[in-house]
């Protein structure tokens, strides 16, 4: 008859004990080193003002885009420049609040996921908070302002050319509106075409 089973034969082997003690050492190290970091991240994700960061970026973007070139007379006279600025800034701020809160939630969900042993999001909320897309209101206001400035520039350029040409006509022996070298009976069209041919060296 076989002998009675011995308890020591059913105990953990040396290899199993070593494996378990290595695992316990790793576990203790994790608890001492990484667990406090995760708790720190939890507190940061609750306290950090990511909306403030994104609002700062949005505000700077709006003001730089719409008022960065400084005040202009045409802008001050415009009936809708301030209204466009208000509209664009309001839209940007709402977008900034959304981005900031979204980044904060992402960070919080990441912490909870890690705490619950699920995959955590490694992305920093701060980086996400500063990525604000320009709202269509800001783009529209910018486009409108560019058109307004281009129009003012074009008017300025035409006015300057007009004045300079008038003075040149007078200096050439003609009147302000009539050049000195225009022939008697020659039409303005003929004179203009001749000037252009000379300029481009044709004929």
């Amino acid at each position, binding site marked *: 008859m076989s002998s009675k089973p011995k308890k020591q034969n059913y105990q953990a082997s040396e290899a199993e004990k070593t494996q*378990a003690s290595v695992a316990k050492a790793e576990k203790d190290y994790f608890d001492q080193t990484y667990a406090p970091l995760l708790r720190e991240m939890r507190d940061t994700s609750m306290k950090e003002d990511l909306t403030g960061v994104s609002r700062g970026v949005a505000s700077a973007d709006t003001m730089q885009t719409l008022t960065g070139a400084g005040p202009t007379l045409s802008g001050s006279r415009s*009936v809708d420049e*301030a209204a466009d600025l*208000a509209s664009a800034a309001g*839209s940007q701020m*709402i977008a900034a609040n*959304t981005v900031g809160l979204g980044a904060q939630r992402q960070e919080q969900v990441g912490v909870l*996921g890690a705490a619950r042993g699920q995959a955590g999001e490694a992305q920093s909320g701060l980086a996400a908070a500063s990525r604000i897309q320009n709202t269509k209101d800001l783009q529209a206001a910018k486009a409108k302002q560019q058109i307004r400035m281009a129009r003012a520039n074009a008017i300025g350029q035409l006015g300057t050319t007009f004045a300079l040409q008038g003075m040149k006509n007078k200096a050439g022996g003609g009147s302000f509106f009539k050049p000195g070298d225009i022939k008697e009976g020659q039409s303005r069209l003929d004179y203009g075409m001749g000037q252009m041919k000379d300029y481009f060296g044709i004929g």
Partner: protein
Amino acid sequence: MALQDYQNNMAQTRNYSVSSLPAVNDPEKVYADISRRDFESYLKDYRGFENQLIEARNDTSLVDRAPGEIAKQNEIAAGIQRRNLSRYGGAGLSIAQRQAQEANLQRQGQLGLAGGLNTARIAQRDLNKRTLTDLINIGQGVNRTANQGLATASQNSAQKAAAYKNAKAAHSSQMMGMGAQIGSLALMAFAI
């Protein structure tokens, strides 16, 4: 961390040895203790945080902030306009033109409020839904892990119960065999 600090740290690490490993005689007990401690830590450190995050699926802060935001931006734009006009000595605008500017700013403010509220509502809904989806994903993972743990525990328990039943059956059949043998020996000894 500077490179020097890193090197010092590495030198310190090299002094560690395997003899500093904790002694584990009963891995099962250690595992049970760690599992219990982990769950206690989760309750203490993260249960409240988790509940707060679950509540955040009904957050309305974006919508609540929108009206104040629009009013503030309108005020800032009106201030800029006033200062620019004073810089250009009124910019040659008539009273009617000034009034048109102000009316336009006011109208844009109201439109901005309506548009901003709509945008904030959509953004809030989207954000809350995303939070909920993320939480559900985490919950699903937790549920899956819990189910796996339960399955392993019940499997182990069922295996142990079956082993016990088998051992009991083996023991009783062994005892019966032994009894029959002793009985046979007695019959032979007394030559019945």
